[in-house]
């Protein structure tokens, strides 16, 4: 375990040194993320124009959902996208061989190799929005609520990660998978709104097929202190199941990997 932590530290320091050559990126990313967020808030405000509401959610509640979404987007840009997009390159060039020859878990290496600071503004803005909207909504920071919220956020990250990883790992068969992860990203945009705002059919799709509901709506409920036990349990179960599935899928995919010919 200690070796994994040391390795993680070295991984991230190496990628930070590489990325920090470009300081201007940070500012650009901050402006882009803020602009994006303002746009999303504006779209959301249209639904709340004349005393209407979205799927039974208050304005502040819906903002919490948006905050969680922004936070996840930030984490995606920081960790998921930079790491998982390289799996495709590894498969295409055959350098996956080197990863497999290291005495360290290959899924860990592929998932944690790089750390890109450009998602940090998104994480900060998302966290800020969650805090502000939860306070406005009158949520009380009781220990139990905080614990539930933290657990559900972790669960949502686990689910998001597994979705990305499985899709990226399938590049072992279909080398050109990159478009598919773009599709995933656009489906996940649905997570900007509470899942109850969608018609019944889509709601079922976003709960059971692509678990968008567990990504943003369930954590938001937990943050607002109104998550019910069954949902918390379901969230946890889905999270653990997806990580286990991603692991199984990786080992399965590796059996088919014969590495690019040289």
């Amino acid at each position, binding site marked *: 375990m200690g*070796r994994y932590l040391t*390795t993680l530290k070295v991984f991230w320091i190496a990628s930070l*040194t590489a990325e920090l050559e470009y300081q201007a990126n940070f500012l650009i990313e901050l402006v882009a993320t803020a602009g994006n967020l303002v746009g999303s808030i504006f779209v959301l405000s249209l639904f709340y124009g004349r005393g209407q509401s979205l799927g039974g959610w208050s304005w502040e509640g819906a903002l919490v959902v948006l905050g969680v979404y922004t936070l996840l987007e930030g984490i995606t840009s920081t960790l998921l996208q930079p790491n998982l997009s390289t799996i495709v390159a590894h498969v295409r*060039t*055959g350098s996956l*061989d080197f990863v*497999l*020859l290291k*005495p360290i878990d290959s899924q860990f290496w592929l998932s944690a190799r790089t750390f890109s600071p450009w998602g940090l503004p998104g994480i900060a803005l998302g966290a800020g929005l969650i805090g502000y909207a939860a306070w406005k909504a009158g949520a009380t920071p009781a220990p139990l609520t905080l614990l539930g919220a933290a657990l559900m956020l972790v669960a949502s990250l686990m689910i998001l990660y597994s979705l990305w990883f499985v899709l990226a790992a399938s590049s072992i068969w279909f080398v050109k998978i990159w478009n598919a992860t773009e599709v995933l990203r656009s489906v996940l945009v649905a997570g900007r709104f509470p899942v109850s705002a969608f018609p019944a059919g889509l709601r079922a799709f976003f709960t059971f097929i692509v678990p968008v509901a567990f990504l943003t709506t369930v954590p938001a409920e937990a943050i607002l202190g109104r998550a019910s036990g069954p949902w918390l349990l379901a969230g946890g179960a889905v999270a653990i199941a997806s990580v286990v599935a991603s692991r199984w899928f990786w080992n399965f995919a590796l059996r088919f990997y014969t590495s690019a010919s040289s």
Partner: protein
Amino acid sequence: MAIVRAQGLGKTYRVADKQPGLAGTLRHFVNRRERLIAAVQDVSFSIEPGEFVGFLGANGAGKTTTLKMLTGLIHPTSGTVEVAGCQPQRREADFLGQITLVMGQKQQLIWDLPPLDSLRVNAAVYGIPPEESRRRIAELAEMLELGDELRRPVRKLSLGQRMKAELLAALLHRPAVLFLDEPTLGLDVNAQARVRSFLADYNRRFGATVLLTSHYMADITALCPRVLLIHEGRLFYDGSLETLTQRLAPCREVRLELHAPLGAEAFASYGEVEAIEGREVRLLIPRERLTEQVGRLLADLAVVDLSVSDPPIEDIIGRLFHQGALA
């Protein structure tokens, strides 16, 4: 106790049997046909610790497939492999910490960063303490004649410098078994010679076992007392390079310089005439009759100069691969 052991090793690939063109693609889409290709068949050998073994074969003979089975990157279809007491395909940490694979066409160094950053990553992954890793980097860098290059981004290094840095990265964890797949590919003659002397040095200093493939025969003749020759997926020869040369080239080449030019018929009784250029003649004489015939040549003809050599190994192996069939 052998450190590398392959027993009846085989690998069969399933490949799509597809006609060219759009029609062929469509037909293939509807009616998928597959063919089995045996890349490696029934290969058995064993290597003792500290041996330096050359692995020869034409492109597509099955060298890389065999190396990949030995390093656990692909699973054998048949037979068994054992390297450093482990089964490679299980890819246990204990096994991976004892081997390394260097591939001339692939690189593990991070392109945009200096090699030192990649080395730091490898040290962490292999669990080498910082102090120890600094010591090893210094030692290997000296052996490889690497200095400032380790602090320059990899993309700014020449091919030769990059290969040396790759070797450093591959050897930082001090593996007991080295699998080298064309480590001198594309290097100029000087860089090739440096890599070669480093490998010999490393093998001596650390008693490491090395299995090397190369297209440059100079690598093999300089480094490998023993060679494995693989041909169309089967092990064709396992033994010393010398015996291989004798077996494949039963004749030696005799070069003569004469006082005055002579016709080809004058040499018919001595050996096979390879070439006649004015006063210079090249003859092929069977090894067992060499002394006798050279003696006769010197006695019978007005010889100014005479030298005996083996035909170049490239020619021998090249002829072998060209002929396809091996007798």
